[in-house]
């Protein structure tokens, strides 16, 4: 039996003490163990940012790519080897600024991977500029007078983009977060998981306490039906996005891979690269 300890490696994270990302890492490790994945069957693909370092802190395959492109790398990997469990992760700048296009198109595409955004409403690694998730009025190095753009609404965006799995967690609540990520891994399409992961160094507004005060837990909403998209949209709008839990899931929607015409039922990586002479000649015939 694997345990979360199997997903620990011997690298000491270079995050600031108290950073929310520690718990996101722990939750991914626990979730992977709970699902029963072997470390070598998991690949964590991450972006650039403080958050992006996460792929180096989990004992599994890890790929720390370039800013904003974790999702296409992750999808390419999953297409190559459908037997791997692929988790993409990165910051709010990574996923909602430079990576916004990929985020929305990945959601639409529904390739079976899990995407965990470590949302601290700030650019951590570059030392405290505004992020698309920074609230209006939030003062940062790049908006000393306060941000003047309404913040991106990840859950609404995901829902309107045809997401089949939308959830949100809070890094303080490792238990709930672990359960969410577990469900995300088990979901057979693209799972979109936004996680409030406080930056203790540059975000003095959206702190642990702030979230504790403002967050609603879906598990506390009686009779909430996560299979209902309208209801999902409603709860997100009502809580102004400050809600945690599995917000929406369509368990029946086929994943991208299930729909691609001709896509092999076995991992592409296991195929013999060389085609037969017969196949080769048939291709030649097209041009004769």
């Amino acid at each position, binding site marked *: 039996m694997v345990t979360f300890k199997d997903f*620990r*490696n*011997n*690298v000491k994270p270079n995050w600031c003490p108290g950073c929310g990302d520690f718990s996101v890492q722990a939750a991914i490790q626990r979730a992977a163990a709970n699902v029963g994945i*072997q*470390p*070598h*069957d998991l*690949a964590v*693909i991450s972006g*650039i940012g403080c958050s992006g*370092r996460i*792929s*180096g802190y989990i*004992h*599994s*395959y*890890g*790929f*720390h*790519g*370039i800013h904003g*492109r974790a*999702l*296409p*790398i*992750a*999808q*390419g*990997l*999953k*297409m*190559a*080897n459908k*037997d*791997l469990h692929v988790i993409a992760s990165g910051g709010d700048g990574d996923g909602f600024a430079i990576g916004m*296009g*990929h985020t929305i*198109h990945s959601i639409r*595409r529904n390739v079976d991977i899990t995407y965990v955004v470590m949302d601290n409403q700030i650019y951590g690694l570059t030392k405290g500029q505004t992020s698309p998730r920074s609230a209006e009025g939030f003062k940062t190095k790049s908006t000393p007078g306060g941000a003047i753009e309404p913040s991106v609404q990840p859950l609404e965006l995901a829902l309107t983009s045809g997401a089949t799995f939308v959830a949100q967690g809070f890094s303080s609540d490792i238990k709930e977060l672990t359960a969410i990520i577990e469900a995300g891994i088990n979901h057979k399409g693209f799972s979109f998981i936004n996680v409030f992961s406080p930056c203790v160094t540059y975000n003095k507004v959206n702190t642990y306490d702030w979230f504790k005060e403002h967050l609603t837990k879906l598990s506390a909403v009686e009779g909430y039906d996560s299979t209902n998209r309208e209801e999902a949209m409603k709860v997100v709008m009502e809580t102004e996005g400050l809600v945690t839990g599995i917000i929406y899931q369509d368990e029946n929607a086929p994943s991208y*891979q299930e729909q*691609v*015409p*001709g*896509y*092999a039922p*076995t991992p*592409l*990586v296991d*195929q013999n*690269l*060389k*085609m037969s002479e017969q*196949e*080769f*000649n048939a*291709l*030649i015939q097209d*041009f*004769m």
Partner: protein
Amino acid sequence: MLQQLSWKVGGQQGEGIESTGEIFSMAMNRLGYYLYGYRHFSSRIKGGHTNNKICVRPTQVRTIPDDLDILVAFDQETIDVNYKELTEKSVVLADAKFSPVAPEDCKAPMYIVPFTEVAAELGTSLMKNMVAIGASAALLNLDKAVFQGVVDEIFGKKGQEVVEKNMQAIQQGFETMAEQLGDRLGEWEIAPADGKHRMFMIGNDAIAFGALAAGVRFMAAYPITPASEIMEYMIKKLPLFGGAVIQTEDEIAAATMAIGSNYGGVRAFTASAGPGLSLMMEAIGLSGMTEQPLVIVDTQRGGPSTGLPTKQEQSDLMQMIYGTHGEIPKVVIAPSTGEEAFYDTIQAFNIAEELQLPVIILSDLQLSLGKQTVEPFDYSKVEIRRGKLVENDEIPVAEDKSYFKRFEVTEDGISPRVLPGTEHAIHHVTGVEHDETGKPSEAATNRKAQMDKRLGKLQHINFKEPVYVNAPYEEADILFVGFNSTRGVLEELQQTFIESDIKVNHAHIRLIHPFPVEVMHSLVAKAKKVVVVENNATGQLANIIKMNVGGHDKLVSVTKYDGTPFLPLQLAKQVKELLTDGNI
């Protein structure tokens, strides 16, 4: 009897000009002729002049000629735009429908043939192209049976009646023309071909086919002229091999997705043109830094920016070598024929895996879209080499979570490669500088070791025939140098010049980077003048030669950047002018 026929059909885009050329060529191909075609078209969907110029020969041909023997015109514009290519020996066949007028200084006689009318009488004016083909057949004295196979193939699924109607259109075109021709019937007959069956394809087909033969099972791409046919071929064929194509949201996603797939162990690639390549520069750097194989096709077109998207140019050379920030090892391959396009694509995938780096297959519009005769590809020559791909059972069980040395500094400079999913080989991959296990590291000594290892890999490249050389002379007056589709025009020129007693050697660079310094050094040394011919304005290849080989004094840069390909006579004149100008 002609030793070569130069045939062109022209009209408005969206009017069936393409299929006219296509059917004519297919028939000639089946007779065993060698063909080389070039399409003139615009960046719009319907309307605007388009034409298709096809050179037919009983022997190898890899360039379009300057002149025309036959011009088939579906509108007046076709005559006005193309008549300068006509000589006294040529002829214009013009559709009666548009009441064609030959310009005063048109050297060739014009035959007005009721293409549309005849077709309409047979049921649909759409068949006017078949009538025109029939008329052409009369000039060439071709048996209409020659077209039966092609017509069967194209119209067969629409039923026997349609096939027959089309054959009738050809027949009537032949007859109507024959009547007008009188004595001249068959005057444009071409010397007989060998009757062998060969492929007839565009360069993009050869590249795509090569990719498939190399074992590609995944492609991620975003449409763009003149690369899209590669994606379209893969969309058609990959499902037969269990693979898939994802049309991505942009080129950045395409390149990074291809990296992801290669990381996963599946050969994957993307194809684009200038604007797309410009967007992929960061991804290419990632591939280089993380030592993940990546193959990208760049089908060059007229730049800069959106430029001349449907025109020939070779102006991305420098970008392909130097476009990425920082320093990575990178391979740039530039095939010049359909055959090379196929085999070099396979080489590209092998090298990408062997050296664990990005390989760019450079093409140009003329090679990518020009349709040419290609010798059937040889299955036995399809070799697949995956380099140091280590399997699980070759790896000792890792102790105490220590990482696998995926980036080990080895003697031959190549680190062992493992795929995610391998039980005993967990490691980290990052675009940040890292140690042998992939952990980020800023240590100066490690940095240097990893940089040296990565950049040093290029020394181990296993590329067959990096330069196509035809150098009959130990001491040459001229060494012609080119890359990509100028191959044919230079071959032609070499022959002409040799015939006028100028000693000419020819080198066509197939491996652009790492530059084949030695071969080129000795060829340059053997020549009085080095004439570098390229479709760009700044003489990029000439500059690369200056940088790598030197020879500044004997280098002559011949450039063309007006969107049109080099033509043999025109180029000969240009070179000769430089000769008499004392430059040579």
